[in-house]
Every structure is written in C-alpha cells, then in structure tokens.
C-alpha cells in the first residue's frame, strides 16, 4: 500500500507539472474533437496524431500523457456523434446509439449527453482506482515470468483475441497472423540475417510501426469515407436544455457500478477492448432489467445508455493494465500506445513501475486528471463539439490524408513511405470490407518480436526441448485459460440452443 501511495505521489508530481497538465487538457480536448468528427474513432485519432506527437520531441512521459489524453478524449467524443447523429465512431460506440439516439430524438439530447458524461466519468475513475491497486500487484507477479511463461501468455492473449473480437474467430486469428508476418520483415536481431527484405535497403530495419498504424487505420479509414460518401451533410439533432438530475444518477448507481466492473475486467483481458465490454454490459443490464423493462431497451432507456458508457470507459482504463505491467496491450488502441512507448525506447513490462516510475505512475495520475478534465470539458462544451459534427465530409476526407502525410513525412522523412501508407491503406480497406477486424493485425505486429524472442529464448534455455513450454504451473494455467476462453463461448451457445430447443 505504501508503495502505491508513494508511486501515486510520484505520478501526480509528474502529471501536475504545468506543462504536462496542459498536455492532459490539450489531449483530452483534441481527442474529444477528433472523436466527435463523424466516422473517426479513437483508434484512427490516436493513429493519425501519434507521428505528430512523436515529432514534437517531448520527453517520453509527456508525449505519452498527451496520447493517453487523446485516447480518452476520443472515446468520449465518439459518443457525441453516436447520440446526435446515430453514426457510431467505432465498434464500441454501437451500443451507445441503441438508446442514446432514441433519447435525443425524444428531445432529451442534453439529458442523454450529460448522463453519458457522468457514467463515463464514474466508469473511468473506477477503472483508474482498480488499476492503481492491481497494476503494481500484477507487475510484481509478472516479474518472475520466464520466457516460457511469456509464450503461454501470448498464446492466451491471441486466444482471447480470436474468441472475443470480431465476427469470425478464424478471420481474427488470420488477421493477427498477418500482423505477426509483417513483423518478421527486416533484419533478425539475433543472427543478423535479413528476412523478406528482397534486397531493398529501406526494409532492412523492418517496416516502421507508424507506417503500419497510419496506413491500416488512417488511410483505410479515408478510403472507407470515400466509399461511404453521402451527398450533403448529415443532419445533427439539436442539443436542448434538458440535463441529467442527481436523482437519475442515484437511480442508476448499481447499473453504473456493475458495468464499470464488467468493463474493467474485460478491458484487462489481453486483446479485448471497449467494444466487447460495452456489448457485454448492455446485454447484462438488459437481462437484469426483467422482461417488462427489457422491452424499453433500444427505445431510449437511460439504463441502456449508462451501462455501455460506464463499461466502455472502464475498459479503456482496464486495457492499460496489461499494457503497462506485462507489455501486452489490452486493445487495438493500447497496442498503438505500446508501439509509441517502444518508439521512445521504453520497454513496458513488469519492471516499468520500478524502473521508470515517472512514466508508469505519471500516466496513471494523468488518467485521474484526464477523467475530471473530460467531465469539465464535456458538460459545458458539448454544444461546441456538436457543431463539429456538421463538418462536411468533403473537407474531412482530404484533411485525414494531409494529417497522415505530415505525420509520416516528419518522422520518417522518406517520400517512399508515403506510397507505402497508401498501399497499406488499400490493403486495410479490403480487410475491413471482408469483415476482418484491424485491431488484431496491429496487435500481432506489435507483439511479433516479443513473441518470437521469448520462444527462442525459452528453447535456448532448454537446449531445443519444446517441453519447456508446458513445464511449470503458471504456463499450464495460462494454457488452460486460453483453452477455456476459446471453447467456453462455443459451449455456452450450444447449451443455450439446447435449452431453447427443450422449451
């Protein structure tokens, strides 16, 4: 406990530094701005701004605080377009449109927006508190992990990814494999042998992480926007004066608490982020509401709005836990943050909390501040963000390309990479069109070298004996969990079907 308190003290001294404090606020504001733009989700926002944040040459903790603020803000901002336009910015916002948009249609847009702000605040804060308590604990367990344990952990991460993300397990797995394969391009660090470089000097160092992220997310999004282009601007509902009452929040307290815990736990699971969390929380609330009230879900029930929102923000915080303590990101967006850490030569993992407390704890502290900042920014300024929704798509689309080009050129400074991101954008658009989710690809790409190196180290230790992978208890538990996470949903759905058939 003492260690946590002194860690928090370190963290707040970093986060309350006037410059960093300003970055949290700027990040939250920018993030909300980007999230509020229709069609641009948090992952695209962070992907597009990451190279620029890197190019500003801030110290790593400041840059990371800025990015985390953008990430948090974008999760928030995406909800504004869900509620007012019925256009979800990303997969996790889909649940919010179900009840949020009907409320706005009924003339309760102000109430819907303020409810979501409060629910998100509570969810986010609970997640940060849990993270403060359990993060260092998990880190201290993970310090003892051997390479073989890490291999098991990766298997678990990819298993939960395959089972819980996306529509098709095989496609998600294939996406992760594509990411892993992309990561093998370049010189093998252990032996100095070039792999898949085809004699092209630009490929010797491997494909830059930023290029993959901006290409697969930013540029693919742009092509998607061109495809979806609707004539004229979308019509936004007006923000009225209705507002959430304290009595509403008190009525919602159990909903918000339950959903926050659900969200946090799902967020911590490696590979599964906010989209799964919000769907599970919504489903749980609907089931608990009883058959009478369940009918009103989807027609503007305030519980149906608060539940996915609290879960979503709790998951966003929860996803940070495995990223910081194990070096394994809990979602696509945290995979990008992990890549950002690696670019600053910071290796996230169990030692991060002790070796670089200013980064780990600074980030945690900035999340406390970010939560408050978002509430303060969002309640009064929501009208301003709502006006952004009417930015015509024909200006938004070229803007994404220009931002992506600025970002890549300033970091890599090589015009060939501008072609590469465009090509990856086309590839990413095809993947998206064929219902592959892109988060696994980026997760595979980020984790590729970690996975390979641990496997090779483990086998070096055992002298080539593969049995080392299943030799100790920790690994076996992780493999059992991996097995359970893949087969439990299949088994549960079979059982549900049989029960339905029996009735």
């Amino acid at each position: 406990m003492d260690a946590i308190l002194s860690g928090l003290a370190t963290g707040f001294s970093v986060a309350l530094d006037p410059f960093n404090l300003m970055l949290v606020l700027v990040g939250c504001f920018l993030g909300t701005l980007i999230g509020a733009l229709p069609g641009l989700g948090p992952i695209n926002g962070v992907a597009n701004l990451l190279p620029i944040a890197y190019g500003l040459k801030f110290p790593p903790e400041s840059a990371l605080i800025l990015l985390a603020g953008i990430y948090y803000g974008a999760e928030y901002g995406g909800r504004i377009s869900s509620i007012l336009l019925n256009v979800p910015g990303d997969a996790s916002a889909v649940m919010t449109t179900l009840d949020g948009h009907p409320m706005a249609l009924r003339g309760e847009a102000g109430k819907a927006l303020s409810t979501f702000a409060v629910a998100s605040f509570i969810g986010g804060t609970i997640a940060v508190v849990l993270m403060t308590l359990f993060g260092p604990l998990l880190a201290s367990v993970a310090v003892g992990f051997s390479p073989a344990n890490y291999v098991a952990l990766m298997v678990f991460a990819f298993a939960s990814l395959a089972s819980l993300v996306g529509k098709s397990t095989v496609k998600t797995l294939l996406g992760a494999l594509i990411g892993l394969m992309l990561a093998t391009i370049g010189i093998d660090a252990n032996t100095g042998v070039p792999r898949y470089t085809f004699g092209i000097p630009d490929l010797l160092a491997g494909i830059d992480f930023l290029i993959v992220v901006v290409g697969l997310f930013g540029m693919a999004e742009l092509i998607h926007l061109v495809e979806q282009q609707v004539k004229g601007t979308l019509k936004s509902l007006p923000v009225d004066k209705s507002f959430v009452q304290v009595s509403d929040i008190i009525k919602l307290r159990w909903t918000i608490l339950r959903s926050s815990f659900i969200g946090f736990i799902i967020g911590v699971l490696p590979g599964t982020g906010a989209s799964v969390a919000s769907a599970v929380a919504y489903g749980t609330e609907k089931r608990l509401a009883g058959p009478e009230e369940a009918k009103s879900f989807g027609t503007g029930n305030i519980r149906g709005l608060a539940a996915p929102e609290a879960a979503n923000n709790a998951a966003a915080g929860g996803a940070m836990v495995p990223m910081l303590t194990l070096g394994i990101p809990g979602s696509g967006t945290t995979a990008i943050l992990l890549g950002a850490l690696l670019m600053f030569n910071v290796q996230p993992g169990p030692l991060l909390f002790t070796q670089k407390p200013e980064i780990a704890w600074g980030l945690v502290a900035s999340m406390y501040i970010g939560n408050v900042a978002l509430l303060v920014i969002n309640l009064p300024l929501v009208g301003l963000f709502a006006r952004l929704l009417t930015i015509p798509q024909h200006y938004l689309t070229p803007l994404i390309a220009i931002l992506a080009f600025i970002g890549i050129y300033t970091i890599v400074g090589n015009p060939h990479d501008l072609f590469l991101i465009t090509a990856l954008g086309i590839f990413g658009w095809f993947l998206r069109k064929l219902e592959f989710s892109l988060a696994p690809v980026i997760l595979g790409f980020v984790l590729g070298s970690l996975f390979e190196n641990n496997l090779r180290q483990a086998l070096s230790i055992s002298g080539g004996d593969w049995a080392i992978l299943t030799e100790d208890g920790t690994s076996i538990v992780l493999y059992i969990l991996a097995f359970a996470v893949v087969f439990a949903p299949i088994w549960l759905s079979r059982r549900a079907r049989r029960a339905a058939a029996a009735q």
Partner: protein
Amino acid sequence: MADRLFASFLLIVTLAYAYIAWTLIEAPFQYDPLGPESWPRILAAAAIPCILYVFWRPDAEPFAVTKYTWFRIAVMVVLLFAYAELYEPLGFIISTILFGTIVALSLGAPRFGALAFGVGIGVFGYLLCVTLMGLNLPEGDIVEAAIEIFNGGAE
C-alpha cells in the same frame, strides 16, 4: 466470392512466404536451437489452415461496391499517389493546395470553398507545423530553386 478471391491472394503470398522461410533464410552459423527461419515457418504453418478455412467457408457479405464507387476510390488512390509523388518536388504548400482543392472538389465541395480549404490548409498547415511546432516538412525543390533565382536576380 470476394472472400475467396482475397483468400487466394493471401494463400499465394503465404506460400511464397513459406517457400522463402524453408529455402532461402538461413543463418551462416548459430548457437540457438531456433534460427531466424523457424518463426516464419511456424507462422506460415498456422496461417495456411486459416486461409483454407476462409476459402472453404467464406462468410463475408457480397462485395456490394458499385462501379461508380470503384471509380471514385480509384480516383482517390491516384490522387494520393500523385500527392506522394509531388510532395518533395513541389513542397508541402503547393502540393497540399493542389491536393486539398482537387479532393474537396471531386467529393462535391463548392468551388470557392474547396479553393479556400486547400489554400488555408496548405499555408496555415505549413506555418503551424514548421514555425510553431518545429516539424520538418518539405519546402520543395521548385520553391527552393525559385527563391534562389529570385535572390540571385535581386543582387
């Protein structure tokens, strides 16, 4: 159908990937049991069954993209490649003005609005990034040459 086409494309790439892993990659000498070729072999061995499964059971919606949409996407891609090609020779300001204006126009912005958008982003974007944030953006070979001639002529 689209799923199968894409799966065949992936299969060809993965087979090439596997071929390289099995024949071309080898370390001249190594002490570790797993060399640089092992990991790509494992990945290829895992990917091929997945691809075959997608091939066997495609599940994506039919690829409902109209000819007109294909055309617009193709135009966009050509514009992006042109933007990338001209980025350094013309410099950020000119290439961005051109790109921003043309894309906005092609997506249906009013003529004057598109021009204002392009010029605004090109000029203010450059000032903001280079002067305020200290980022490195191309000034442009042509612009540099023009400035040189201008300076040379003034002397």
